[in-house]
């Protein structure tokens, strides 16, 4: 008992030295708090952060899955940027991200405004809207692929009948990319709509009432009240969607049967399928990580997004 106590004291002193604030680890409540977050932190550090460091390390070496060779500096990155498949994957990913997030935001806002009005059966409509969102992305991709198939697909039939397309949709890169953007819009517009709807419901009705009394038009009320008050929610929704669209993998995999490359499918091909490109694949992985981080930073610093930790 005494030894346990002494040990604890000794440990407390050591940690106090480490943390530099007196009593932080001696206080039983605070010590318990650290113990409680420790499992989560450890597993996250081991399974997410350590592999990122490893990715960076591997991308700077001549490496295969089993053997890490000599240090080669940024050679893998040079190879990566010269690879026309990577360039195509980057272009596809950027076009996909910008187009799908824009469409989803506009449609999502419209749906949110519609659902913000009370009407009979609103709960059912909300449940219906949730259905596309809840499906596994890769499965909904397979579903849409069935509807886009040349001989049996109802959408393929309709598009040919209307003269919109002149070749099988699934064999044409441009058509595939457009179809992927639309399927993504179908699937994730509900997410933006529900987030914005929740945001709309926090705006008190008397704000609008006061504006109306002062003679503000509908458009003025929307631009001067709704948009500014909704800005934090808009930023959260758009950031989440942007980063999610940027790592698109399931959708392209299911829709295009590996004929349409995104950055993520490029990494997957490199590190899992063509093992010769293990090192370049890791360089591409680091590229995705760094650029995604920069996008998040842009939202937080430049656009002034409030993060969850500020209270």
């Amino acid at each position, binding site marked *: 008992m005494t030894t346990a106590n002494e040990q604890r004291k000794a440990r407390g002193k050591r940690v106090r030295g480490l943390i530099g604030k007196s009593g932080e680890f001696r206080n039983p409540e605070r010590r318990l708090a650290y113990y409680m977050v420790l499992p989560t932190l450890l597993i996250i550090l081991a*399974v997410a952060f350590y592999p*990122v460091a490893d*990715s960076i390390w591997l991308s700077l070496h001549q490496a295969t*899955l089993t053997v890490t060779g000599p240090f080669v500096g940024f050679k893998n990155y040079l190879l990566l940027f010269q690879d026309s498949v990577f360039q195509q994957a980057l272009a596809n990913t950027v076009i996909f991200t910008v187009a799908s997030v824009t469409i989803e935001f506009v449609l999502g806002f419209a749906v949110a405004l519609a659902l913000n009005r009370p*009407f009979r059966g609103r709960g059912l409509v909300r449940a*219906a809207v*949730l259905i596309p969102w809840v499906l596994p992305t890769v499965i909904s991709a397979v579903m849409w692929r069935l509807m886009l198939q040349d001989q049996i697909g109802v959408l393929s039939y309709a598009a040919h009948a209307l003269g919109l397309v002149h070749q099988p949709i699934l064999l044409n890169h441009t058509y595939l990319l457009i179809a992927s953007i639309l399927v993504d819009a179908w699937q994730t517009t509900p997410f933006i709509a529900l987030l914005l709807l929740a945001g709309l419901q926090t705006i008190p009705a008397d704000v609008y009432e006061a504006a109306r009394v002062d003679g503000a038009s509908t458009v003025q009320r929307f631009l001067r009240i709704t948009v500014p008050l909704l800005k934090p929610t808009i930023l959260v929704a758009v950031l989440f969607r942007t980063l999610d669209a940027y790592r698109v993998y399931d959708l392209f995999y299911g829709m295009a049967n590996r004929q349409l490359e995104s950055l993520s499918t490029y*990494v997957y091909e490199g590190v899992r399928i063509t093992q010769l490109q293990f090192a370049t694949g890791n360089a591409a*992985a680091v590229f995705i990580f760094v650029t*995604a981080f920069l996008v998040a930073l842009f939202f937080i610093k430049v656009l002034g997004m409030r993060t969850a930790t500020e209270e």
Partner: protein
Amino acid sequence: MASATTTRTRSAKKGLAAVLFYTFIALIVLVSVLPLLWIFKMSIITNSELFASPPTIWPQHPTGASWRQIFNNPGFLGAIRNSAIISALTTVFCLLFGSMAAYAISRLRFNFKGSVLTLILAISFFPGVAIIGPLFKQFSELHLINTYWSAIIADTVFSLPLTVWLLVAFFKELPKDLEDAAKVDGATTIQALYKVVIPLAAPGVATTAILTFIYAWNEFLFANTFLLTQNTQTLTVVIPNFATVHTVDYGAQAAATIVATVPLVILVLIFQRRIVSGLTAGAVKG
């Protein structure tokens, strides 16, 4: 505009607005639900009807052939089991780790709370693909590749931010008095968490469990990377491969996608309100 007709125009305008509004609502519902119904229709028609041009609207000769085919396929049945096991265990681990972390973050005082929360939430912005190379290497060395554990470990880490985030929001809504009373009566903090807080926050914990389960059920990247054979592969991995291997069995593909989505549609219909509250928890604090 003549003053006599003003009121009529106004009410006509109002009527038109209402028509437009309900048309828009109807359109939203149709676009959300119709694709699923169409795929279901594809799963119950004959092969010759599938190839009919123009496509039939109503099934002419409904048949269960595609459904029999997938349910006679042991690989497919195995995939349902694999998906269920991996998602259920991921949910259990997430709630176990997540409830402790969320309690500490929402109730206890300690330095670095902000950094801890940021570190956890950063994972939700993490492109999973950035780590599949090194993780595959490490899991190979640990002989975890092609076991349930490889998917469970990766899924747990990547759904933990969601779990912690939701639980923090739900725990914060609870009054602190009851725990304090329990502690006065001699309960430890851990006992207060499991005997008082979690039972009181049960609806929130259930919401969190549902959303975590959905996340794990839908996960594809890690499953497709770490699970190599049909013994361990989940529905999300088996179905797209089904689509490329049996290219001509369109009816069976359609039936298979319906099987993967039905549990989720049922969850949505039952827990619609909870799922929405969970989805938006915290993201829109006034």
